[in-house]
C-alpha cells in the first residue's frame, strides 16, 4: 500500500487546527512553515526595495546628474531632482546590504530553509520552535535599524557594503545603524543555523540516512555550518568597528591617523585587519548565498528531467569541499589591498582550487539533464538558467583568481558582472525556480504557468543584457562605485553601453510585476494543487498541501534516496522516498497514526 494514499481526508487540514488565536498562529507563530512564509514575504518586499535602489544606481551611471523623472523632485528636492554624489554612495551601499543581508541570505536559509527542512526530512517542526520564532523576530530590529538609517542625519551607511575602515569610521550615524543592523541579522542567522543543524542531525524520519537526504537539505546543512563558523568572526569585527567608532579604540587605524585635520587618533591598529576579518566571513558568505540554491536547483532539475540526479555522492562531497575550501580563500578580495604579496600567492592557489568542486557540480547537472525526459515547466527553466548563468559567473571568477589579471580588473565592472552573475543570475534565478516549484506546497495552489514562462523569458533576456555587457565595461577598466565615470577620458565612450544596460535593468525590474501579480493572485485563485503536482519523490510532496500543524498525517518511513525517477522498480515514473518497495514490507514498519 502506498503511503501517499494514506490520509487523503486530511488534504484540507488547515494550519490552524488548534485554537491559538490569530497572533500566535500567524504572527508569533512557532510553526516552521509560518515562520518560513514570514521570511519569504519580508524578503520579497526587501527584494523590491533593493531592486529600486539598483535602478537608482543605474540611472546615475547612465545619465549622471540628470534629473530623475517623476520621483526626482520628490526625493532630491534640494539637489534639483538629481542624485548627489553622496547619495550615490548610499545607493550602492544600501542596495548591496539589502540584497545580501535582507534578501538572499534570509530567503535561502530563513524562508526555504525553514519551510523545507522539517518537511523534507520527515519532522513535524524544527528542534527548537521558540528559537526559530526568535530568529525571525530578531530580523525586525535589523529591518528598523537599516530602514530608519535613511532618515538619520547624514543619511544611511555610505562606505560600501564592505565598510572598509577608516572611511567607515568617518561616516555618520548611518554607519552605526548599519553595524547594529548587521549584528542583529547575525544573531538571527546564528539562531537559525544551530537550530537547522540540530534538526537535520536529530530529527530525520526512520530510514532517512544522511545519504538519502535531498540536495536541498545538504545545501542547507552545509550552509548552516558555514554560518556557524564564519559569522561569529564578522560579529567580532563588527563590534571592533563599533568600539572604534563609539569608544575610540584603534583596531583599524594606524597611530597618528587623522582625517580632515582633526586631532590625531590614538590608533595602533591596521586598516587591513578589518578586510581580513570581513572577508573571512564574507567569502564563505558568498557560498552561503549559493549552496542552498544549488541544492534546490539539483532537486528541481532531477524532478523535471525525470531521472536520478547524476552523481549524488560527488555532489554532496563537492558541496562539502566548497565549504571547506571556502574558508581559506578570502584573501582573493585583497590582492591589491596592500596585503603581503606572498600571502596573495597562497590565496591565489586556493582560489583556483575552489573552482574544482564547482566544476564537478556543473558537470553533474549536465549529466542529469543528459538522457532525461525534460519537462519544460517554469521551475525547470529557472533551474536550467541557474546552471547556464552560474557557469558564466564562475568562469569570470577565474579571471579574478588570477592575481596579475586581478590587478587590472579589481574594482572594475568586471567584478560587478561576476557577482551579479552568481548572485542574481545564479541564486536569485534559483530562488525564483524554487518559488515556482514549492509554491503549490506552500499555498496549496498552482502558479500560472504561462505567466511564469513570460516572466522567465524576459527576466532571462534582460538579465543577460544587463550583466553580460558589464564584463565589457570591466575589460575597459571602468571602475565600480563611481558616481560619474565620465569624469575620466578613458571611459567617455562607454556611455551608450551604460545606457543600454540601464534600459535592460529597467526592463528587468518591470517584468517582475508579472511575477508579483502571478504570486499574489495564485495564492487565492490558482487551481488547487493536491499533494504532489509535480510527481516528485521528496517527502514534502507526500504531506498535505499546505501541510497542517505537525506536517505529516502519517508516520514517514524512508526506503530510498529522493531521486528515483523512472526507476525500473516502479511502474510509475517516480518513486516516492517513503513508498515501500514491492514485496519487501507489505506494511510500513510503523502503521500510520492519526
Amino acid at each position, binding site marked *: 500500500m502506498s503511503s501517499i494514499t494514506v490520509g487523503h481526508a486530511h488534504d484540507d487540514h488547515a494550519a490552524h487546527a488548534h485554537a491559538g488565536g490569530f497572533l500566535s498562529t500567524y504572527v508569533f507563530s512557532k510553526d516552521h512553515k509560518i515562520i518560513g512564509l514570514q521570511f519569504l514575504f519580508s524578503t520579497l518586499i526587501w527584494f523590491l526595495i533593493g531592486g529600486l535602489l539598483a535602478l537608482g544606481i543605474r540611472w546615475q551611471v547612465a545619465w549622471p546628474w540628470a534629473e530623475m523623472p517623476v520621483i526626482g523632485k520628490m526625493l532630491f528636492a534640494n539637489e534639483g531632482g538629481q542624485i548627489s*554624489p553622496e547619495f550615490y554612495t548610499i545607493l550602492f551601499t544600501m542596495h548591496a546590504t539589502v540584497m545580501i543581508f535582507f534578501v538572499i541570505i534570509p530567503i535561502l536559509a530563513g524562508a526555504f530553509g525553514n519551510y523545507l527542512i522539517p518537511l523534507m526530512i520527515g519532522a513535524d517542526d524544527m528542534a527548537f520552535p521558540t528559537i526559530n520564532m526568535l530568529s525571525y523576530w530578531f530580523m525586525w530590529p535589523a529591518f528598523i535599524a537599516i530602514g530608519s538609517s535613511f532618515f538619520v542625519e547624514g543619511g544611511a551607511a555610505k562606505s560600501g557594503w564592505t565598510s572598509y575602515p577608516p572611511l567607515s569610521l*568617518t561616516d555618520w550615524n548611518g554607519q552605526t545603524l548599519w553595524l547594529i543592523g548587521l549584528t542583529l541579522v547575525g544573531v538571527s542567522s546564528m539562531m537559525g543555523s544551530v537550530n537547522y543543524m540540530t534538526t537535520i542531525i536529530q530529527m530525520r524520519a526512520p530510514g532517512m540516512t544522511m545519504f538519502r537526504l535531498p540536495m536541498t537539505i545538504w545545501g542547507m546543512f552545509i550552509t548552516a555550518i558555514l554560518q556557524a563558523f564564519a559569522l561569529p568572526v564578522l560579529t567580532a569585527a563588527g563590534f571592533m568597528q563599533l568600539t572604534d567608532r563609539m569608544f575610540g579604540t584603534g583596531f583599524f587605524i594606524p597611530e597618528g*591617523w587623522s582625517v580632515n585635520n582633526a586631532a590625531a587618533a590614538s590608533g595602533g591598529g591596521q586598516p587591513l585587519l578589518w578586510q581580513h576579518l570581513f572577508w573571512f566571513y564574507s567569502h564563505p558568505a558568498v557560498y552561503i548565498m549559493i549552496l542552498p540554491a544549488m541544492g534546490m536547483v539539483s532537486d528541481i532539475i532531477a524532478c523535471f528531467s525525470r531521472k536520478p540526479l547524476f552523481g549524488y*555522492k560527488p555532489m554532496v562531497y563537492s558541496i562539502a569541499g566548497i565549504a571547506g575550501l571556502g574558508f581559506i580563500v578570502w584573501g582573493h578580495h585583497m590582492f591589491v589591498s596592500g596585503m603581503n604579496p606572498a600571502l596573495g600567492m597562497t590565496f591565489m592557489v586556493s582560489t583556483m582550487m575552489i573552482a574544482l568542486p564547482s566544476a564537478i557540480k556543473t558537470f553533474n547537472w549536465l549529466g542529469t539533464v543528459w*538522457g532525461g525526459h525534460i519537462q519544460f515547466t517554469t521551475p525547470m*527553466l529557472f533551474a*536550467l538558467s541557474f546552471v547556464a548563468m552560474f557557469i558564466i559567473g564562475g568562469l569570470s571568477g577565474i579571471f579574478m583568481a588570477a592575481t596579475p589579471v586581478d590587478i*587590472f580588473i579589481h574594482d572594475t565592472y568586471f567584478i560587478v558582472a561576476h557577482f551579479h552573475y552568481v548572485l542574481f543570475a545564479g541564486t536569485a534565478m534559483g530562488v525564483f525556480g524554487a518559488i515556482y516549484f514549492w509554491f503549490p506546497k506552500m499555498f496549496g495552489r498552482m502558479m500560472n504557468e504561462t505567466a511564469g514562462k513570460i516572466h522567465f523569458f524576459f527576466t532571462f533576456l534582460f538579465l543577460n543584457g544587463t550583466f553580460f555587457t558589464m564584463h565589457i565595461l570591466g575589460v575597459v577598466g571602468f*571602475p565600480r*562605485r563611481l558616481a560619474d565615470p565620465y569624469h575620466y577620458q578613458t571611459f567617455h565612450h562607454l556611455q551608450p553601453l551604460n545606457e543600454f544596460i540601464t534600459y535592460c535593468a529597467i526592463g528587468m525590474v518591470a517584468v517582475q510585476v508579472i511575477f508579483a501579480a502571478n504570486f499574489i493572485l495564485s495564492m487565492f485563485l490558482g487551481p488547487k494543487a493536491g499533494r504532489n503536482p509535480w510527481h516528485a519523490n521528496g517527502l514534502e510532496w507526500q504531506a498535505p498541501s499546505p501541510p497542517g500543524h505537525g506536517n505529516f498525517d502519517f508516520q514517514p518511513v524512508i526506503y530510498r534516496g529522493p531521486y528515483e525517477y523512472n526507476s525500473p522498480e516502479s511502474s510509475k515514473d517516480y518513486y516516492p522516498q517513503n513508498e515501500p518497495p514491492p514485496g519487501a514490507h507489505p506494511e510500513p514498519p510503523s502503521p500510520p497514526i492519526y
Partner: protein
Amino acid sequence: MGKFWALVFLLVPVLGVACFVFAPVYQHWLPIDVSQEGHTIDHLFYFILWLTGVVFVGTEIALFWFMLRYDGAANRKVNYTHGSHSLEIIWTIIPAATLLFIAIYQMNAWADSKIRNPAAGPDGILGTADDMPPTVEVTARQFEWRLRYPGKNGILGDQDDVHVVNDLRLPVQEEILVDLKSADVLHSFFLPNLRVKQDAVPGMKIPVWFRATEKGSFDIVCAELCGWGHYKMKGRVTFVSRGEFDEWLDEKYREQTATVDSQVAQGDVE
C-alpha cells in the same frame, strides 16, 4: 516548446561570444598598454579568456543540445543512471590540471608586479648601498593626489622636494618607483594604461613600480571608494623624455621657491 527554450538558451553562448568579438571593434576593450610589463597581464587575460571561452561555449552548447535532444515531448526512453565513476574522475582531473596549470603559470607575472621590488637594487636585498631611491612619493587624500619629487639631491623629505598636485610627470623608458601613501582613508592608485593598481593604505608606504614605453598623457583613476568625492579624484600621468622631465622639475622647483619667497616676503608663512 522544448525547441524554443533550447534556442533561447543557445542565445547565451552565441550572443556572449558575439559580445566579446565585437567589443574590440568598437574600442570597448583593454585600453592601450604603454607599459613594459603590462603585456604579460594582457597575455594572461587572453589566455584565460580563451580557456574559459572554450569551457563556456562547450558547456552552454551541451546544455542547449541536451535540452533540444531530450525534450520530454519526444517521449524517448529515459536513461536511468545514478552516475558514472569514470566520468567523475575525468571531469575532476582535467579541470584540476588546468587550474593548477594556470595557478603556476601566472606566478611569475605576479612576482614581477608585486614581489620583485626594484627598490632593492641589483642585489635584490633591501637596505644595502645599491638600493634604488623612489622616483616620486604619491600621497592620496580626499580627493586628490599629492605628489612629491625628491628634487635635485635625490632625497625625499627635505627642503629640496618638489610638490605637485594631480599632475604626475615621469620620464619614459625608465624604471619608476613610487612610494604610495594615504593621508586619510583608503584609495587606490590605478593606471589603466599601465596595468597598475595598488591601494593606498593609511599608515603604510607601499612600493609600486612600472616602466612606460611610450610618451603620452593618461588617466590616474582612484579605484577604491574614498568618500563622496571618490568619482572626481582624477589625476593625470604624463610620460615625457628624461630631458623634458628634468626641465619640468626644475621649473616646478623654481615656481615653488618663488611662491614661498613671496609668501615669506608678505609674512604669509607661520
